[in-house]
């Protein structure tokens, strides 16, 4: 039963306009974002220009960067946070300012007046005189040395206090602090990344991560349209009554529909991976590398499929619940928030519980490896959530079938607004 339904659903889906629009959008997005890969050559010892930047994982760098940032914000009396990726200025009242002052003094072992003098002096240094007499302030990172003997743990504890004062999205969360220690990569660093890409990633791994980074963005929103359209279709064709009388259980109906949707939407993604895979193969012929041929498929399954699963499930759930396209709006909001709040973590290795884990580089195998368990947790969570949502949708479907919850309306108290509809249905 479930298999026949699955096949029927697939066939219906492959004939629908919105499914092909979905495929078009996915393909368009891929080719405009990732398209043809430019393979970086091996870094040379005396290269001109910089090798790129990296995040220093030395605690000293992080502490200095964060303390400097805190001091600068304190002296300018302007704290910026970005909870959803848009800048928000936070104003502190006097007692909060006092707290920050105390933290600064404790961390550096210096009274605030000394810190003020040091900061003013640094700002003077940053000023550049222009030919017309005006002065411009050079951008730079102010750093403050912590007092001797300050442990990383104490530092993090104090920074947590700062986070409580500033609210979410500040520069002083544990994640953001890591981001503030930006240093230049040395030749050795660059070489290590390059070797990681070839040896540990088998070349394909890195590009598979990049692929998942880009595709994750679009797969976190597009499937909801297909799912909602499919669910609403029954209502428009006024098929609900007919389906309700059939033998199949609600769970069978909805799960076969869900499986058909997710399967049909995932296959095009898999097919798209052939493109970068072939590019990797042809590039790999020229150099000595042991290609991991299955990388693209494995990464897509683990990274992208959960996104498709949960977005489709959400679409189905909200359409069953409200009988309208509200699922689109809910998902659009979630997508928007995930996208913009992920801007700080673009380089990968900081996945958190974001719906769209970012990793916008073929490098940074180290970051991926370190945070793999977090990523795994993230993806498993969304799979579980997806299954819960589909189950919920099936339960709502079943309730409506039994006559509870009115026909297509959440509240039975509302008067039937469209007597014309049932009259037409009756006349068919």
């Amino acid at each position, binding site marked *: 039963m479930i298999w026949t339904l699955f096949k029927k659903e697939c066939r219906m889906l492959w004939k629908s306009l919105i499914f092909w*629009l979905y495929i078009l959008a996915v393909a368009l*997005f891929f080719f*405009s974002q990732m398209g043809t890969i430019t393979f970086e050559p091996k870094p040379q010892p005396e290269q001109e220009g910089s090798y790129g930047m990296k995040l220093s994982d030395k605690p000293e760098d992080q502490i200095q960067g964060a303390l400097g940032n805190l001091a600068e914000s304190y002296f300018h009396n302007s704290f910026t946070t970005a909870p959803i990726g*848009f800048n928000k200025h936070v104003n502190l009242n006097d007692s909060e300012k006092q707290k920050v002052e105390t933290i600064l003094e404790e961390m550096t072992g210096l009274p605030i007046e000394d810190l003020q003098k040091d900061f003013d002096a640094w700002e003077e240094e940053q000023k550049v005189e222009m030919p017309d007499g005006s002065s411009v302030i050079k951008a730079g990172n102010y750093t403050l040395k912590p007092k001797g003997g300050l442990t990383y743990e104490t530092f993090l504890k104090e920074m947590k206090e700062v986070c409580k004062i500033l609210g979410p999205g500040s520069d002083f969360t544990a994640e953001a602090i890591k981001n503030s220690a930006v240093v230049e990569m040395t030749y050795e660093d660059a070489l290590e990344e390059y070797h990681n890409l070839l040896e540990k990633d088998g070349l394909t791994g890195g590009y598979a991560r990049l692929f998942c980074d880009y595709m994750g963005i679009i797969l976190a*929103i597009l499937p909801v*349209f297909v799912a909602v359209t499919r669910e609403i279709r029954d209502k428009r064709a006024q098929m609900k009554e007919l389906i309700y009388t059939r033998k199949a259980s609600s769970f069978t109906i909805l799960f076969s529909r869900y499986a058909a949707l997710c399967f049909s939407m995932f296959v095009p993604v898999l097919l798209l991976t052939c493109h970068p895979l072939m590019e990797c193969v042809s590039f790999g012929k020229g150099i000595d590398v042991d290609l991991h041929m299955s990388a693209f498929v494995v990464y897509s399954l683990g990274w992208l499929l959960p996104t498709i699963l949960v977005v489709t499930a959400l679409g189905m759930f909200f359409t069953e619940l409200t009988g309208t396209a509200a699922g689109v709006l809910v998902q659009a909001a979630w997508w928007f928030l995930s996208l913009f709040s992920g801007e700080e973590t673009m380089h990968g290795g900081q996945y958190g519980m974001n719906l769209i884990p970012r990793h916008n580089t073929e490098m940074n195998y180290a970051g991926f490896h370190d945070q793999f368990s977090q990523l795994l947790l993230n993806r498993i969570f969304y799979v579980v959530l997806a299954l819960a949502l589909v189950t919920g949708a099936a339960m709502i479907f079943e309730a409506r079938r039994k006559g509870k919850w009115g026909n297509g309306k959440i509240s039975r108290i509302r008067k039937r607004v469209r007597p014309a509809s049932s009259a*037409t249905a009756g006349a068919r």
Partner: protein
Amino acid sequence: MLFAAAPLLAGVRNLSVGETARLLDFYVVLPGMLLLIPVFLPEQDKAIRDLIRARYTSMGSIYLVRIFLNVAVMAALTGVFLLGLERGGCDFPFGNYFMASLAGMVFLGGFGAAAFALSDNPVIGYMASLGYYLFSFGAGAKYLGNWYLFSLVSGSYKEKVYLAVTGVALLAAAIVIRVQKTR
């Protein structure tokens, strides 16, 4: 509701010109889409459509009135929001930014409404608008040129004019297509 959520999620006080532009370009443009796309939704049900068509007033003028009303609401809400920003100490050229925001909204709304009219499916309308938003986000100015959505951040108004004119044209086209299709 979306407008009201802004102070909670993003910042609305003491924003610089660039930050305000970013907020308007990326966030504020979305409610416009919400108001304009469902313009044909009530008449989707065939029975209601027949009922309305039997009346003296033409379908086209009904849609036109509805669009005008929605745009008026959009303009009012945007105006109030911008006033709120200004009160909160944000620094930006009011008149220009107001027109710029409306341009973006009208375009996205028109684009979606046209897609709705062509496909007879509101979800495709939303998808088209969000798709355009996404495409602007990713591919950006390179592919879209004068029809790039997020030009305010780089201080350019030229694109906004293109967007506004195209938006109005799209809305008009949407009405015409809809009326023709459902004749």
